[in-house]
């Protein structure tokens, strides 16, 4: 079968440049920026798993392995663009500008943790699969309506492509040429179901053809390739050329969530053995080393900064004031209805949980 969507790659797993066209863009500064953010979210991710194991937060959704996809895409956005993430895309949210303290509060089951970013249009993680794709289309349509140059990006996994809302979101966005990027991270598994059982299509990106939109299949472990593919898709969106479907081929190194045991459904040992070989951060490190961009001192320095930032946020999360039960009643409507007000008062009168 002819490969209709070759994998777009700029550096291979050993860090070698495989695509000369973009050589000028691979500056030391860019490499450092990408490296910093990938390291930051990996450190956070490892901490997230540890905090769950220690019972200091609730179920956590790890994304290790997907850092290049999340950082490369998030850093391609402009300040006023819209981000619609899922529960596995907190790496992307944090990179774009979500607040770390609130993110941790969210994993600790606190409603305050869903407060959107103080500065950016970042929606809370969408839990129902693919339902936020039409939202991204609508937010993007609103930008066109208002005559701005802003765009939207929606994140979703391979499993989401089987949902009706995937189809409805892509279709409506394509009909109205909405400035939106549909950014798929195909990590091969929807909890336990391998992508081969998710669909009979060879790739996810080929579904773009059905909607008459651009499709790009990118090496999701190559942060440069992801970054440039998303930049180009956003540029097309801003130019009125409509949506792009990007399939970033990646690997979820760990479990679906901290409540999941992947050895039940896949050869987890094999994935553990190949981790270093395919790791997106090590790939960038290899490239930087080969090109004289690696600076041990700088790496030590950013690691210290990151550790400090995360520890401060954990402290803030753990010392956050106790939840006020009223909070669940206060934001259902602008003004509570009488039923909500009555229920709130009844609960407060009996004092709620002690």
């Amino acid at each position, binding site marked *: 079968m002819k490969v209709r969507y070759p994998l777009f790659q700029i550096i291979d797993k050993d860090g070698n440049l495989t695509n000369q066209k973009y050589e000028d863009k691979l500056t030391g500064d860019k490499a450092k920026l990408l490296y910093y953010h990938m390291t930051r979210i990996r450190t956070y991710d490892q901490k997230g798993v540890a905090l769950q194991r220690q019972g200091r937060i609730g179920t956590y959704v790890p994304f290790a392995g997907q850092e290049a996809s999340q950082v490369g895409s998030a850093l391609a956005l402009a300040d006023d663009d819209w981000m619609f993430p899922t529960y596995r895309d907190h790496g992307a949210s944090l990179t774009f500008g979500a607040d770390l303290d609130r993110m941790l509060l969210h994993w600790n089951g606190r409603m305050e943790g869903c407060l959107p970013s103080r500065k950016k249009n970042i929606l809370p993680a969408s839990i129902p699969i693919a339902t936020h794709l039409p939202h991204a289309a609508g937010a993007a349509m609103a930008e066109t309506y208002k005559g701005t140059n802003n765009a939207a990006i929606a994140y979703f996994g391979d499993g989401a492509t089987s949902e009706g809302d995937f189809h409805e979101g892509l279709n*409506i966005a394509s009909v109205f040429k909405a400035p939106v990027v549909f950014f798929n991270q195909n990590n091969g598994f929807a909890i336990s179901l391998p992508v081969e059982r998710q669909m009979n299509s060879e790739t996810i990106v080929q579904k773009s053809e059905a909607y008459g939109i651009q499709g790009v299949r990118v090496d999701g472990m190559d942060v440069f390739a992801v970054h440039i593919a998303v930049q180009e898709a956003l540029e097309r969106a801003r130019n009125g050329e409509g949506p792009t479907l990007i399939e970033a081929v990646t690997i979820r190194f760990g479990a679906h969530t901290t409540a999941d045991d992947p050895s039940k459904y896949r050869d987890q040992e094999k994935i553990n053995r190949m981790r270093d070989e395919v790791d997106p951060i090590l790939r960038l490190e290899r490239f930087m080393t080969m090109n004289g961009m690696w600076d041990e001192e700088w790496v030590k320095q950013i690691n210290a900064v990151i550790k400090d930032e995360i520890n401060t946020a954990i402290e803030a999360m753990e010392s956050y004031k106790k939840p006020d039960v009223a909070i669940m009643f206060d934001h259902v409507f602008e003004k509570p209805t009488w039923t909500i007000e009555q229920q709130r008062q009844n609960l407060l009168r009996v004092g709620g949980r002690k």
Partner: protein
Amino acid sequence: MVMSKELAESRSAVKTNSLTVIQAINNGLNVMLGKDKHTLILGEDVGKNGGVFRATDGLQEKFGENRVVDTPLSEAGFVGAAVGMAFNGLRPIVEIQFLGFIYPAFEQIATHVTRTRTRTLGHYNLQMVIRAPYGSGVRSPEIHSDSVEAFFAHMPGIKVVCPSNAYDAKGLLIAAIEDPDPVLFLEPMRLYRGKREDVPEAKYSVELGKGKLVEQGDDVTVLAWGAMMPVALTATEQMRQHGITCDVIDLRTLYPLDKDIISESVQKTGRVVIVHEGHETGGVGSEIISIINNTSFLYLRAPMERVTGFDVPVPLFALENDYLPTPERVSQAIRKVVNF
């Protein structure tokens, strides 16, 4: 019909037109599109065709394709897109062609439309209206006749409104569009082209969450809304000839229910008949009974009665008049509570 003096005066002072319910809705949409550039209409066949019931007739011509948007046949898609637009400061009015076609968008409504304000602690509110013709009695095909207001009255985070006449249709629609929270606006298609009413030409609103006493009596409180109002009124008129008089209340908003108008009347009459065409079990009638139980238990002189659609899928139209509450069934229920 009872009309307050103030209302009658205010109506005589303003320019009015004699409109059907569907014309009043069209007029309300027209007024609101003209007021606010952030308001737009999305739906199937709403543009060039003016909607299958002509609710949006002439609006695309007047306001353009960007304000009155023909969408693909995609309820989850365009309700979802409306959510995205509302995140981004627009105020979409979505038309669902028939309430029974809302099910593909059920997930969008249950997981996002109703939860966004709570989820974001008020950072984002969705100022959007979902309009849907509902109900049986117009010989339409299967699924076109559902009356499932209870699904949505049960969902925290959305108001449910249902007018029964042209004046309320326009006023409630404008209030719904101006409400900062999502509103499901149910339109009784059986009454779309029925009685005409004087409807003020200008913008006015009817407060959400308030019922209306449309007929006064002493013996029984009859509660209904939407297409069941004429059924209830026919029955109470028959009863009046037998010397039984009723308070007839048009609830108009199904969430939040107007607890005060209900309890005030029930505490006077002590007898209750609730009429709705939605299925009986878990219908809005159950909630009304619960409110009366909490507010007026000791005033009751008879067990409360419900006259409702049955716990069966709405049948094809050969049997729809058997499914629907009739004045005769309502009269029987009134007699039953009086004779208890």
